[in-house]
């Protein structure tokens, strides 16, 4: 029971991180039709930037903000300076993002080196918390809370604000949105900045739980892609459901069936692609 409880908390904490990574990826994919293969690198770059901010400032919260803001800025520069030039050319965009992910991975090696690094959580979140006779890692509980609060904030933004309605209009039909005079390009920049911010923030938040290493992007990006495929591109509900599913299956799969862990993850994805290619919450 105790092991199950701890595994569940670990799985939900991982789901929270995946949500932070996947929500930006799915909005960018759903709205701009860009499969941003550099998105996993945003997570990793964010974590390393956060580490540097922590080393300089000693403040974990500044590190989280720093990681997020650095990636938001990077996202804006990329969207205006690069992606806009390749609008409507999906293959070019995929190759561009692949190249960017390689550049980012090399940048990490040059700036921060190849040795895995650790990032401690804030002091008050170190150690266990005992409840209902079960001992939980405090930091992972905190991640779940942060993930839930972020999910709520994103839902409110997407569903209850004008900018959220504009983003959803762009996901529904970019061409008609432009023909209505909606500044879709500004919305693209906003989505890119927000998605990159969340990925960077997620990287810093995930660093105390996952070991920081340059090759991490090749681990997290496939999971984000699975989340989006299962949940459906451009869908908040899809990102949430997909993150929960992948977090739970990945964590419990590795705990109970480590030799089948990728099988348990990618078989559902393959089934979704075969029978409902738009994803659970995506539109046909």
């Amino acid at each position: 029971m105790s092991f199950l409880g701890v595994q569940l908390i670990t799985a939900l904490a991982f789901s929270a991180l995946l949500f932070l990574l996947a929500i930006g990826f799915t909005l960018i994919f759903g709205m701009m039709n860009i499969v941003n293969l550099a998105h996993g690198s945003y997570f990793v770059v964010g974590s390393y930037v956060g580490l540097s901010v922590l080393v300089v400032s000693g403040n974990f919260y500044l590190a989280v903000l720093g990681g997020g803001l650095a990636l938001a800025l990077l996202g804006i520069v990329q969207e205006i300076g690069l992606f806009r030039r390749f609008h409507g050319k999906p293959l070019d965009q995929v190759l561009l993002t692949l190249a960017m992910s390689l550049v980012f991975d090399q940048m990490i090696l040059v700036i921060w080196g190849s040795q895995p690094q650790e990032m401690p959580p804030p002091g008050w979140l170190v150690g266990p918390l005992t409840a209902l006779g079960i001992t939980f890692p405090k930091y992972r509980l905190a991640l779940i809370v942060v993930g839930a609060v972020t999910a709520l904030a994103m839902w409110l933004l997407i569903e209850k604000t004008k900018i959220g309605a504009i983003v959803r209009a762009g996901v529904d039909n970019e061409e008609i949105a432009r023909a209505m005079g909606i500044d879709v390009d500004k919305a693209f920049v906003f989505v890119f900045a927000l998605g990159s911010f969340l990925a960077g923030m997620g990287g810093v938040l995930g660093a105390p739980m996952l070991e920081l290493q340059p090759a991490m992007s090749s681990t997290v990006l496939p999971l984000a892609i699975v989340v989006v495929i299962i949940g459906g591109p451009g869908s908040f509900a899809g990102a949430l459901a997909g993150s929960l599913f992948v977090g739970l299956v990945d964590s419990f799969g590795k705990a109970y069936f480590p030799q089948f862990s990728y099988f348990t993850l990618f078989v559902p994805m393959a089934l979704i692609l075969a029978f409902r290619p738009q994803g659970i919450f995506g539109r046909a």
Partner: protein
Amino acid sequence: MILEIDNVHTYYGDSHVLHGVSVGVNGGEVVALLGRNGVGKTTLARSIMGLTPARRGQITFRNEEIARLQPTQIARRGIGLVPQGRFVFPSLTVYENLMVASRGDGEHGKGWNIERVLDVFPPLRQRINNRGSALSGGEQQMLAIGRALVTNPSLLVMDEPSEGLAPLMVREVGKLVQTLKEQGYPIFLIEQNLAFALEHADVVYVMSKGTIVFRGAPAELERNDAVTAQYLGI
């Protein structure tokens, strides 16, 4: 002339769809463009809006050349589009569909806002929190028209507004077209429904295979059996 389309050639890839099309819309006028399916009517609407830009020729709106502008820029200069197939935003509610498009105060005496659209289309008020995907065809058409109106356009481009609607709904759309005409809105009305177009238009054009084959008053077209038989299948 508020809209002047001069010798426009439009292509889809290498496919030459519009061959030197010239059309004019004066202020306060309803100009109808008729023709069978696939002759290029919607392509002309798309060229006006910059969605499928003309490769050659000029499109002038309020004395400004717009053929090389982006769709957002063209819409913001005052052309409101009611697209063929309605294309309301399915994941947005009725209110949100109107909200994202809402702009300005208008220039024909009365500005259009969301409240006014809901007054004109009571069924939309009843469905205000329903998503676009949940509306009937007629309700979606009302919403598509309302969405174009809240942009407070100086010119409306309506692409087959009667398509797929029940006769009662077609009459309602016709009443709205008449009301807008009386308020001085110029309308470029693209239609396959000959009766609908003739009832409301001041000038009619007929298109066939991407070229204009007739221009004249509605009464002239009604009397011209050769054109209606050959190009409209009537």
